[in-house]
């Protein structure tokens, strides 16, 4: 958290409708690259093998025609897509037959990311993604811009957002707070007003991870731990099988064992090396009131989430990480970061010493109220239900084999007793806590999860009681928060406290 270099003041990107980089169409066309190459390769192989019939010439013609149409489509789409950087909003016009006019007010920005793929870096280009509140069609992608324009647009949008939220005084056309003033909002007519400019914002570094810590964080994540666990389990199983078979291990069994172990090691190394590239140069910092995360070697990502737009923070660890005393955090914005490629846009704090968690969260949000409150455990009836449910979950799938191999198969059902330690472990951890700023929900048997939800971001609350829960006087509480990643909450709270929290927590958001 050392103050470092000041950030250059923001200047206004040129106004007026502009197109993205002309290379956009070429990149769109190149995205077909693999498909095209594979088709060409197939055609070539067929030709070599003499499989091509008399109609080969016609097939080639169709193929070229399809390619040309696709290429032209990319060019036309690029030509008809323009963006206009306004004082208060970004306007995007696109579409050939049906024109779409989209207005993105800077004040509503939830997250703004700069993404540079390896190819884009070679050409000095970048893709800018702007998210307004969650839902459909709320992500605007400006692909591709030259890097300088993209960075300038991002800085401008953030500065204007801050100015707009500072108060109604920062009216359109009087954006003094940003250090640049657009006179009368006329396109291109900009002039600076140095006497009104605030001191340039300072970047405060919160967390930097070197290769070693990135590797540690990635290798102790649930995925690799599970792979190693499964690999060892398979090795033990193969070993036991061999011993039971006749004592002397034969060559085949040793081969399988070696294959399993080497396969496990290769998988883990691949994950580790991939992560070293993905999270190379990991740096989390605060500029003004925005969280900035930058990482990546071949694929550079710069994520920006305004602090006020943080919807919740999830703290996760697993048995290995607990032994090492580290946790990881996910800072959720309201942007669409659901799955697939979007998951890479989550602001993740890969690794943090557990003892630093309260201080880190307070520094991250610049609010001591974010320190996680103590968690109140659930009632004894919740413990009973936790155990009974898990015993049932384990035993039910074993019921058919147990019945089929009666009476010896009844021993299968004893495996259901595994549900007892599982349920007890899950119950030991579960609980909720409420502080003046936020509510916290803890859960998980092996992988522990702590959800921190600020009262200010709760949209609504739900509780539900199944038939069995009603008999035990319990209920499930869920808080609805904007953004992807489900609704934080807790199973099997006492009915009365679930009802009270459901009525109380959403009202505190005022």
């Amino acid at each position, binding site marked *: 958290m050392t103050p470092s270099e000041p950030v250059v003041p923001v200047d206004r990107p040129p106004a007026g409708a502009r197109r993205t980089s002309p290379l956009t169409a070429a990149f769109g066309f190149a995205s077909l690259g693999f498909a095209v190459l594979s088709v060409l390769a197939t055609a070539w192989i067929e030709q070599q093998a003499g499989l091509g019939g008399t109609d080969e010439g016609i097939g080639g013609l169709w193929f070229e025609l399809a390619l040309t149409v696709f290429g032209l489509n990319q060019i036309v789409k690029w030509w008809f897509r323009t963006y206009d950087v306004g004082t208060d909003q970004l306007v995007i016009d696109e579409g050939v037959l049906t024109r779409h006019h989209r207005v993105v007010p800077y004040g509503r920005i939830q997250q703004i990311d700069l993404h540079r793929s390896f190819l884009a870096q070679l050409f000095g280009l970048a893709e800018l993604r702007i998210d307004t509140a969650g839902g459909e069609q709320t992500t605007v992608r400006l692909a591709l811009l030259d890097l300088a324009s993209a960075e300038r647009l991002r800085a401008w949008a953030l500065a204007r957002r801050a100015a707009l939220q500072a108060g109604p005084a920062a009216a359109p056309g009087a954006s003094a707070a940003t250090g640049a003033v657009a006179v009368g909002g006329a396109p291109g007519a900009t002039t600076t007003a140095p006497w009104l400019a605030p001191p340039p914002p300072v970047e405060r570094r919160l967390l930097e991870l070197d290769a070693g810590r990135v590797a540690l964080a990635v290798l102790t994540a649930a995925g690799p731990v599970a792979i190693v666990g499964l690999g060892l389990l398979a090795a033990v199983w193969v070993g036991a099988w061999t011993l039971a078979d006749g004592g002397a291990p034969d060559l085949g069994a040793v081969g399988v064992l070696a294959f399993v172990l080497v396969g496990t090691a290769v998988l883990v190394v691949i994950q580790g090396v991939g992560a070293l590239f993905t999270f190379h140069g990991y740096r989390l910092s605060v500029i003004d009131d925005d969280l900035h995360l930058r990482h990546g070697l071949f694929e550079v990502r710069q994520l920006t989430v305004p602090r006020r737009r943080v919807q919740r923070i999830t703290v996760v660890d697993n048995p290995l990480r607990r032994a090492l005393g580290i946790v990881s955090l996910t800072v959720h914005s309201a942007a669409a970061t659901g799955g697939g490629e979007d998951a890479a846009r989550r602001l993740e704090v890969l690794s943090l010493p557990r003892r630093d968690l309260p201080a880190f969260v307070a520094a991250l949000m610049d609010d001591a109220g974010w320190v996680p409150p103590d968690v109140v455990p659930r009632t004894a009836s919740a413990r009973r239900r936790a155990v009974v449910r898990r015993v049932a979950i384990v035993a039910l799938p074993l019921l058919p084999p147990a019945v089929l191999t009666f009476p010896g198969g009844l021993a299968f059902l004893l495996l259901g007793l595994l549900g007892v330690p599982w349920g007890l472990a899950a119950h030991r951890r579960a609980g909720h806590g409420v502080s003046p700023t936020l509510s916290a929900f803890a859960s998980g048997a092996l992988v522990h999860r702590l959800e921190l939800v600020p009262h200010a971001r709760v949209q609504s609350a739900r509780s539900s*009681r199944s038939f069995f829960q009603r008999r035990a006087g319990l209920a499930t509480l869920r808080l609805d928060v904007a953004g992807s990643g489900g609704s934080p909450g807790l199973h099997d709270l006492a009915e009365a406290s679930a009802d009270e929290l459901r009525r109380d927590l959403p009202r505190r958001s005022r």
Partner: protein
Amino acid sequence: MQPVPPLPPPALLDGTPQRLDPRVRVVWAAGSALPLLAVTVAAVVVLSLVGAPGLLTAGVGLLGVVGVVLAAVLAVLEWRTWCWSAWDDALELTHGVVVRHASLVPYHRIQQIDVERGPVERALGLSSLVLRTAAATTDARLPGIPAEHADALRRLLLVRAGVDDAV
């Protein structure tokens, strides 16, 4: 300018528990029974055309009838568990036969309120109010509101919602 219809019952916003309009039972029953009935009739017709055993055809028909009766019973039970209260600052909904759901949506979180009317609802003069917040998971669908009150209730809630980006 259109004349403004009278305000609906919860004009006081004092949290008095409200039942849904009883006609909503017909909407729910029809919603599950009509498709079931159509499938049953089609199955019976096809079975008798291909000359299936009479017992099989009768069984399928009976299954359909039982399903329709069950749908009606469920609709009645569902209506009996439904209850909504408009408080000064939030709307509270309670419903569910097998699993009891309860939710609370503060007015200041409302982003949008839709009034939806399906074909059966239109025939019976009912509307559904769908409250939307910035969270996709919010459960705030208020069915069985008499159509003449729906717009007024929507306006009443929107006035309470105020102007805020609420994310």
